[in-house]
């Protein structure tokens, strides 16, 4: 192998805060050849971001490299000090961060921000720097780059801002690009476009790349090699195909098994990884995964396994045998579903032509600015006992529907009928009583709970409000709830911040269940969780549904999660329900071009699946303040005709009753090519 571009050797990083020191990295080693792409995957706290940040000397406050070396392009970056690092940053090593909304300076023009590294590292005048910055903006696919140079970040969409961030990182044509979760904050279709762009630029500029992500789907087709991190160490590293085909470390194996994509069409329960990652503030002995590993023996708990192997290295005493069947196969279907798909049954919730307009904000003297049509006439029926999945990108109105169903928002028009009664015709008192039948589960469980209330009080509050039983009875209900969601009864005396994200989501579920509701509106309940924890929550939700005959309105942007959990799926685009039907049918033979595009766009965690990518969606979602005439999807639709701009498509059922689509040209065989 030629001289590596980057060589990380025995890197140790500590993060000291007032009361404790976290050993974030504990001996990380890897090399990167020029032009090579390395994917670093792991769950939160695994040290993947710390690895990326320490290369640039950008550790958070209190963080420091305590041991080891980083050699880059012939220089020792740790020994070189601040001056050397500043020379490298933005010049030969570029970075793209996760959140394009916060990583750009809000008060500086795009042009000034993109030109900044050029002015710092190259001996050129302002005029030339601006010209080159503008070229770079064009290269990252920014329409009208000359205009955009004068814009400020808030005038651009999230995807466009991430393009700016990439332009900034690449404007000096670095030898190494570090991308730290570059698409995590973006929508599926935008995500795909940004990853394609990075791919394209990488081959054009011939740079090496480190792609840090929690999403196995993102790296599957984008990198040469993968390093799986766990608790501050590299657990396994191999070529991407080799790793996905035959993971050797038990953690990697478990991680793959926990993916909802792998439990095709919700056949069985997802495999979960029990417990939590270790606390890195205390000293670790033995294998860090031992406590959660089904194969751990005494040696795992006392001795630390070394990372051994040449092309495919792993640190495990009891690796997955090479001749094992595909680790994903044993979780694939075969068995019966735990619950048969609910396709018939009494309607519990009926939504008819539901609309919600939000006025655009303006001062007291500003009037007639128009409205944002968040939900533009949605009709759907949720049957008792089923899971109705609402899927769509941000701004499609899925959350607004959930909020209206839960009574947090009043519809502009249309009706919501629950158990045969129209919510709008109820009196205030009736509505109040009625509220207990519909409960909400939120995405951000931290923000959704009063940080100064004990868990017992939080869980009891709904009972107190509805005046259910006396104190002893309430305590009994709370204790039973904690049992049901798998938390110790002692939790009542603790505060929400003392729990991990997954445990807090269990609390969120427990709170939603307190009043024994009929329907739970779950708004992105697992989006903030790591894969292994997400699997635990999804399994728990299923189990509780079976035991308590719950109905879920499950809102998510994640196609795989919806596919795993939902019986019926509704696909939303820009305030409209474009397709709705049994989950298996919608996924296998989508009728709407948008659904097809979404399915083609999503990143499948399987490098072998590359190539048959179909037709990923291009473009950006238009503004809901001024939605396109006719069919709202027509501006991005590959098969749009003149009629689509003139007439709004009616709901039809070309594939049989129960599978609805709102499209003038529904897809026959489920593929775009057939229709065109």
């Amino acid at each position: 192998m030629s001289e590596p571009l980057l060589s990380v050797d025995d890197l140790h990083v500590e993060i000291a805060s007032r009361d404790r020191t976290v050993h974030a990295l504990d001996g990380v080693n890897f090399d990167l050849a020029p032009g090579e792409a390395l994917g670093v995957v792991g769950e939160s706290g695994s040290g993947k971001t710390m690895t990326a940040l320490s290369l640039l000397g950008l550790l958070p406050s209190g963080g420091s490299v305590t041991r080891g070396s980083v050699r880059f392009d012939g220089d020792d970056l740790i020994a070189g000090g601040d001056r050397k690092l500043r020379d490298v940053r933005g010049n030969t090593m570029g970075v793209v961060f996760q959140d394009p909304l916060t990583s750009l300076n809000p008060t500086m023009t795009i042009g000034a921000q993109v030109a900044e590294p050029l002015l710092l590292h190259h001996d050129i005048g302002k005029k030339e720097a601006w010209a080159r910055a503008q070229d770079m903006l064009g290269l990252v696919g920014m329409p009208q780059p000359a205009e955009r140079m004068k814009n400020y970040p808030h005038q651009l969409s999230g995807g466009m801002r991430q393009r700016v961030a990439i332009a900034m990182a690449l404007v000096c044509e670095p030898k190494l690009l570090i991308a730290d979760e570059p698409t995590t904050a973006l929508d599926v279709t935008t995500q795909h476009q940004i990853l394609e762009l990075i791919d394209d630029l990488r081959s054009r500029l011939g740079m090496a790349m480190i792609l840090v992500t929690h999403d196995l789907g993102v790296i599957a087709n984008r990198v040469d090699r993968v390093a799986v991190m766990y608790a501050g160490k590299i657990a396994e590293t191999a070529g991407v195909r080799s790793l996905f085909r035959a993971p050797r470390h038990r953690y990697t194996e478990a991680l793959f098994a926990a993916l909802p994509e792998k439990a095709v069409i919700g056949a069985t329960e997802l495999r979960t990884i029990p417990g939590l990652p270790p606390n890195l503030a205390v000293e670790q002995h033995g294998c860090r995964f031992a406590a959660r590993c089904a194969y751990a023996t005494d040696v795992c708990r006392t001795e630390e396994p070394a990372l051994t192997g040449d092309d495919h290295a792993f640190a495990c005493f009891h690796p997955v045998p090479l001749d094992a069947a595909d680790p994903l196969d044993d979780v694939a279907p075969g068995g019966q579903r735990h619950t048969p798909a609910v396709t018939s049954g009494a309607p519990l919730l009926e939504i008819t032509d539901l609309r919600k307009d939000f006025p655009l904000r303006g001062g007291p003297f500003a009037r007639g600015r128009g409205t944002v049509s968040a939900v533009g006439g949605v009709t759907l029926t949720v049957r008792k006992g089923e899971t109705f999945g609402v899927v769509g990108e941000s701004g499609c109105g899925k959350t607004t529907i959930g909020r209206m169903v839960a009574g947090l928002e009043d519809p502009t028009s249309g009706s919501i009928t629950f158990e045969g009664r129209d919510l709008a015709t109820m009196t205030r008192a009736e509505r109040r009583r009625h509220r207990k039948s519909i409960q909400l589960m939120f995405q951000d469980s931290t923000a959704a709970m009063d940080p100064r209330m004990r868990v017992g009080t939080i869980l009891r509050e709904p009972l107190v409000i509805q005046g259910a039983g006396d104190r002893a009875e309430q305590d009994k209900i709370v204790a039973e709830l904690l049992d049901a969601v798998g938390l110790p009864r002692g939790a009542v005396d603790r505060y929400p911040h003392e729990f991990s994200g997954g445990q807090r989501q269990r609390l969120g579920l427990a709170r939603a269940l307190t009043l024994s509701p009929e329907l739970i509106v779950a708004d992105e309940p697992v989006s903030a969780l790591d894969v292994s924890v997400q699997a635990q929550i999804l399994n728990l939700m299923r189990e509780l549904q079976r035991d308590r005959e719950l109905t879920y309105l499950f809102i998510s942007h994640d196609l795989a999660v919806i596919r795993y959990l939902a019986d019926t799926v509704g696909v939303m685009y820009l305030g409209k329900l474009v397709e709705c039907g049994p989950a298996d049918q919608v996924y296998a033979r989508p009728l709407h071009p948008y659904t097809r595009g979404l399915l083609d766009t999503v990143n499948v965690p399987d490098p072998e699946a590359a190539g048959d990518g179909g037709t990923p969606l291009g473009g950006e979602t238009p503004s809901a303040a001024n939605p396109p005439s006719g069919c709202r999807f027509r501006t991005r639709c590959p098969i749009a005709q003149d009629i689509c701009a003139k007439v709004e498509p009616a709901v039809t059922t070309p594939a049989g009753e129960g599978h609805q689509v709102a499209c003038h040209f529904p897809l026959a065989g489920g593929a775009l090519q057939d229709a065109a």
Partner: protein
Amino acid sequence: MTGFLVKRLLQALVVLFLVTIIVFLLLHALPGGPARAILGPKGTPQQIAHFNEVQGYNNPLPVQYWDYLVRLFHGNLGESYKLNESVSSLLGQRLPKTLILTVLATIVAVAVAVPLGLLQAVRRGKPADYLLTAGAFLAYATPVFFLGLILIIVFSQAIPIFPAEAPQGTSIGSIFSGFSGMILPIATMALGIIAMFSRYMRSATLDNLTEEYVRTAMAKGQSSRRILAKHVLRNALIPLVTLLGLYLPTLFSGALVVESMFNYPGMGLLFWNAAQGSDFPVLLGVTLVVGVATVVGSLVTDIVYAVLDPRIRSVS
């Protein structure tokens, strides 16, 4: 930007119009009406009736308001009961003085407080930060008159470098020719403001330093010093501007203590004396001026705001 300015100016005009209505109504809310206020308790009913007839107080209120507005536009704010001078000429003498004092004190305060706040934020938790924090709290907690006394004792008595009295001339030129006399009043006024503003500047800078765009700037290879100057400063100034806008009218009417201490006859002294002597036309004149100052202050704030923050410009 131009659209924003025009719109904001129109809004300011509307508010000013409302201010005149309020002041006009206040005039009519005087105990016993303006006639009783002017003629005093000894005025006979005949005198009062005559006064009301001559002054137009028998006309309907809208007509009176119109007359009031016309007079206002001609700079006629009425006559002082006590000083035998027109209110407008009194304001004409006093207003520039207060303006000079407060504007200079504010400029000095901002010029000192902004770098101090930045320095404290960068040196957070280090001796310089603690020292400056202690100093700021001390200055903040000390009453203005006491602060002024100390400054007079130290810089006028113990080390006589500045006079203890402000320049007494009535023209603006005389104030600037005797400028050494302005040093202590300005310093007295500025110290308290510096204490307050530097605290805000410190916390705004700290907030911004943890923002991700700062990390992005570091990732470009920018030095800490230039990140502070190029990226953080402008963002950190935004909250300070809000504070300044809210504070300006207070400064304007609150220069009283400093004015009386250094015998500097500005608006504060005028207001104080008028209040003591129930000199209503003067009081209302000052109220009108302070009202205008408030509106202008918030207008200036909004404009500076829009200059600093492009997001404001496009929302409005």
